[in-house]
């Protein structure tokens, strides 16, 4: 609790989105993966991206992670227009991504995983400093990790997810992107991860959650962005939307009124200009 206050003050809830995507398009050869996708993420907000298989969720994440470059469109981060050519660039900006497979080294212990590639120390490793920092970080996340000196292989699914999330926080990011964090987890582990997401939100970070599990999405998200066949198909506030409405937007059973109105508006403007 004591740590929350200064962190929250550092990223006050603002009207300006911390990350804003406009007109993002991407194709792989003849396959149009994303067409004209818009998205805003505000600080202290959990935005869920949902969609069917092949809707473009992972492509969108990979663009933000610096794995792929977009073919068209702009990315505005913290008020500045940016490009993300490499994963290192994404990290330097303050965008942290936790991939579905977590990308942890099973044979290394928790501390080594957290600081892999970012080790503390000049010529020799400063193990004490790293272990101390690891505990601080894990305590902040109220993580239930029994020891930071055991190999990641011996941790449960939820604990590994916690380690992966803790690792993403080391560079002090502003936006954390979680790709399917609760897939293949048991109920208790899912509970842990969902609490963790609420914790990140309370710390004033922008959180992007990609998930297939509607119950989890509705439990923690503030907003849900629906992608369908690589296009925006709705942007809902969770308190205003029902499970059925989200599902129908995902499957395309209904055209989304908001998107339709927006596109009608745009084409109207185009014809005027």
């Amino acid at each position, binding site marked *: 609790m004591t740590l929350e206050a200064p962190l929250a003050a550092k990223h006050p809830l603002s009207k300006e989105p911390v990350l804003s995507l406009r007109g993002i398009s991407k194709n792989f050869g003849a396959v149009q993966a994303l067409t004209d996708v818009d998205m805003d993420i505000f600080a*202290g907000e959990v935005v869920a991206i949902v969609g069917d298989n092949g809707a473009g969720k992972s492509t969108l994440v990979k663009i933000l992670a610096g794995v792929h470059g977009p073919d068209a469109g702009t990315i505005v981060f913290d008020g500045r227009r940016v490009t993300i050519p490499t994963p290192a660039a994404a990290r330097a900006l303050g965008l942290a991504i936790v991939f579905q497979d977590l990308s942890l080294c099973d044979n290394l212990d928790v501390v080594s995983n957290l600081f892999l590639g970012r080790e503390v120390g000049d010529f020799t490793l400063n193990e004490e400093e790293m272990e*101390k920092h690891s505990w601080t970080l894990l305590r902040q996340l109220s993580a239930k990790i029994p*020891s930071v000196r055991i190999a990641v292989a*011996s941790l449960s699914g939820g604990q590994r997810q916690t380690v992966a999330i803790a690792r993403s926080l080391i560079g002090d990011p502003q936006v954390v992107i979680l790709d399917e964090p609760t897939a293949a987890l*048991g109920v208790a582990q899912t*509970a842990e991860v969902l609490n963790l997401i609420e914790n990140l939100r309370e710390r004033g970070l922008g959180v992007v959650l990609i998930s297939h599990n509607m119950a989890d999405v*509705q439990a923690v998200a503030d907003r849900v962005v629906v992608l369908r066949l690589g296009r925006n198909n709705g942007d809902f*506030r969770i*308190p205003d939307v029902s*499970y059925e409405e989200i599902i129908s937007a995902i499957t395309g059973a209904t055209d989304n009124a908001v998107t339709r109105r927006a596109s009608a508006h745009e084409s109207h403007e185009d014809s005027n200009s």
Partner: protein
Amino acid sequence: MASERRTPGSQTSLREANRARIVDAIKKHGGLTQVELAGVTGLSPATVSNIVKELSAGKVLHTTPTTQSGRRAQYVTLAHALGLVAGVHFSTRHMRIALADVAHTVVAEHHLPLAKDHRADNELDRTTLLIADMLDNLKASMNEVLAVGIAIPAPMDRKTGTIAHSGILRGWDGIPVAEVMKRRLKRPVFVDNSANLGAFAELRIGAARGKSDAVYIDVGDGIGAGLVINGQVYRGFNGSAGEFGHTTIQENGPLCRCGNRGCLEAIAGGYAILENLKPTHGNLKLNDIVTKAMGGDAGCVRALAEAGRHIGVAAANLSNLFDPERLVVGGELSRAGEILIGPIRHALERSVIVDEDSMPDIVQGQLGARAATLGAVAFAIDRVAIGPNDKVD
């Protein structure tokens, strides 16, 4: 690391502190091996071993031999010789679950955010899995569970065991929760309204201890109340007493989820507050309102104060009706403390009929968000104590 490992205090005074550290760590993790305990607490393995030996002799801890990474180890849990009781609290957006022994000591606890309009089948499935998982963590089996208490945020019909008024908790209408869970867990299950159980917990171990007439007001997404009369929680003829949130305070007021107009809940409940703050503050959750109000956000302070005023008016009517000794304010928004409770007191003082000396005192609940969970535990323990076949009353 050095400062983490260093044991605080002098040689003579630290033993007690170290014991507390170990018990706290086990409470938080449910169960740990001795080696892990040393890592978590920062104590040396020898100290941990000594203290664990001492505490297991004193029946505070319980050890079972196990293996970890191919080595023998001692798995340490809190002792629960007399059996366990589970308490589950479903609120509109959260599920809390606690396993305790019959002495009310919580040995494992979990919290899970829930979707808006969660559904009974899905959530009861998850509860079953979660209880099994937590038992597994404690190296206990389902047979050791004596009873399960469940708190539901809606009035329960005593005869049918279902929710008494449809529409209040949409996904749970017509589900006989106790029966369904009894079939799944094969253990006795007892269900009651969460405000009643919150009142029960505050009466037993919280802010209303020793009071024979008290009211517990639960202010969260909805508003509910538990009435304590003559040292007993009063449930009414049908079991739906204390529906404080659905007292009409504005005859042609806003529409409530119960179908009426002008209910207290529709004006001062969490949803109403969030809705009022939407134009200026955007997407918020109840917790955010409390945090912001405590941080001095004028809009949130005002919203809470206004809600408090309305609650105070309704509470004054309630106090005039049956003259309680103490009002305990609990629920998610009660964390705001005097920001919410001050205006309640102020409004109550204006409209209550008795003189200043005999007015009920208004205090914040001591158990916070866990009140109803602990109430469910206590409820289950009591039911077991009088025998599972006795008539529940």
